[in-house]
């Protein structure tokens, strides 16, 4: 390990951090625009545009995140009088750092580097998945500390609520990931991606995928599980007392974590950077290497895989925005019910299915996939048919007659 390696590593870290924060900024814009269109509005369209002939504007509003960041930096930074000052100031950092370092073990593509490593991955460690789970759990400290340190009862309650929610969904999330780990027989993220080159995990583990999607949505306190910010009951939530950039950091956490979780989901269930035809040593890779030479071929292949990975993440992020536009916020008891009484047992069932299929059909991807898929769909169908949907309004007796 020479010093150039260290420098490359540092540069990679800086790029990832900057990338994550930029993605956050533009994801908020994308979300606002999409939500607006789904609600028959236009969304931010004032700050910045590329003028086109005929008075048309391209990409209008694309400087909105920049304007907002500028505004937030110049806002007055108030610290409540009785707050625990240092903890209060550190809380946003506690929240945002885990969100950014999740990206460290994610393989964003495949571009082999000179040290038997991957240019598009910061750290290919043996316990990559475990690291991701551990770091996502760390985020709860930020919320709890923020709620506690601002010395406001509302924030305190918000923080407690947030911690309860995040911790409740951790188990289901961990079990859903465990399924993938069992099938790939490795905690190493690059090996999990490599194991999916024949078949993406979404097919044999459709149940696990659904569980992961729901649990990760709750884990990153995203609508419809965004009870952490409850304007009606808690005046805002754990971040009530925070202003200016400190407040923005909490939002940053939420969004970076959301995108990171989508990236993790793409890696675990949608085959990461792979795509039919795109494999290490596959047709495209060898073709590129042959046509452009080893170095350039690998670079082009790396960029293609990076784009594929980002597209998958983007698709999942779009889905998250879509869900936000569609489903109203759940009640707190519903949230807890779903987490403990539905998702956790389902995740255990999922583990059982994966264990049985993998032991029953060793080294037979198609059989594992077929049986896993059918079993998953059956379980999902049974569970969803068990949930009672509320009565149509026409059938509800609003006033009971008294005889």
């Amino acid at each position: 390990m020479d010093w150039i390696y260290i420098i490359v590593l540092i540069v990679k870290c800086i790029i990832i951090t900057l990338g994550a924060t930029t993605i956050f900024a533009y994801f908020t814009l994308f979300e606002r625009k999409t939500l607006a269109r789904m609600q028959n509005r236009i969304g931010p369209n004032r700050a910045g545009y590329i003028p086109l002939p005929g008075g048309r504007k391209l990409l209008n509003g694309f400087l909105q995140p920049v304007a907002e960041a500028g505004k937030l930096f110049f806002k007055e930074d108030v610290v409540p009088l009785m707050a625990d000052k240092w903890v209060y100031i550190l809380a946003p950092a506690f929240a945002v750092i885990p969100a950014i370092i999740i990206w460290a073990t994610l393989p964003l593509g495949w571009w082999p580097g000179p040290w038997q490593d991957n240019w598009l991955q910061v750290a290919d460690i043996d316990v990559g998945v475990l690291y991701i789970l551990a770091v996502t759990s760390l985020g709860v400290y930020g919320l709890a500390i923020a709620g506690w340190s601002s010395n406001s009862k509302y924030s305190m309650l918000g923080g407690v609520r947030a911690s309860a929610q995040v911790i409740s969904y951790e188990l289901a999330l961990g079990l859903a990931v465990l399924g993938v780990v069992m099938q790939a027989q490795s905690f190493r993220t690059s090996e999990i991606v490599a194991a999916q080159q024949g078949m993406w995990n979404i097919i044999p583990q459709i149940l696990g995928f659904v569980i992961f999607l729901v649990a990760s949505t709750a884990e990153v306190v995203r609508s419809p599980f965004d009870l952490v910010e409850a304007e009606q009951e808690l005046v805002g939530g754990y971040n009530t007392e925070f202003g200016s950039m400190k407040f923005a950091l909490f939002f940053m956490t939420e969004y970076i974590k959301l995108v990171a979780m989508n990236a993790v989901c793409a890696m675990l269930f949608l085959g990461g950077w792979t795509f039919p035809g795109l494999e290490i040593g596959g047709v495209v890779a060898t073709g590129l290497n042959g046509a452009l030479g080893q170095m350039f071929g690998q670079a082009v292949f790396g960029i293609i895989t990076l784009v594929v990975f980002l597209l998958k993440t983007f698709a999942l992020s779009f889905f998250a925005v879509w869900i936000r536009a569609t489903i109203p916020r759940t009640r707190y008891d519903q949230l807890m019910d779903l987490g403990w009484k539905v998702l956790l047992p389902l995740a255990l069932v999922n583990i059982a299915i994966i264990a049985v299929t993998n032991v029953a059909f060793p080294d037979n991807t198609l059989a594992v996939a077929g049986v896993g898929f059918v079993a998953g769909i059956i379980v999902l169908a049974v569970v969803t048919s068990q949930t009672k949907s509320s009565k149509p309004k026409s059938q509800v007796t609003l006033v009971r007659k008294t005889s």
Partner: protein
Amino acid sequence: MIGAFVKGLSTTFKYLFRKPVTVQYPEVKRPVRERFRGRHELKRFENGMERCIGCALCAAACPADAILVVPAENDPQKPNSPGERYAARYEINMLRCIFCGYCEDACPTNAIVLEHQYELSFFERGSSIYTKDMLLIPADKGHGEIPPILQQLDRRPSPPAQIDL
């Protein structure tokens, strides 16, 4: 449950391709309703004379105490308004005004009218005082006619004491 879920998702997805209904405010201004109460204006008679006769009934009626009227005698040779007096000073404190329209109701000559202008922001507290110069409209514009809605209903405006000389 899945059915309802898919239905909801498809509904929101459909809207993604619809034309937004938003009005692009600073460029496009949607006309307000006829009865909208915006910024005040002091009207004139058709011959160009001020309608306001400085009676200060509006100031008396104002629940927010926003109006100041200082009347003065008219010069008989060159009267500002019909009758003996006119408003030498007429000020409305827009920080106080609650746009209730009582001043409009109280005015015997229909001089003060809450019109449709609603862009009223300013940067200094001092700018909140609207003086007579700002309120009084040019002689060729607007004479405090009966609003179209009342014309349609064939009703006299309240206050019925409108004098048209």
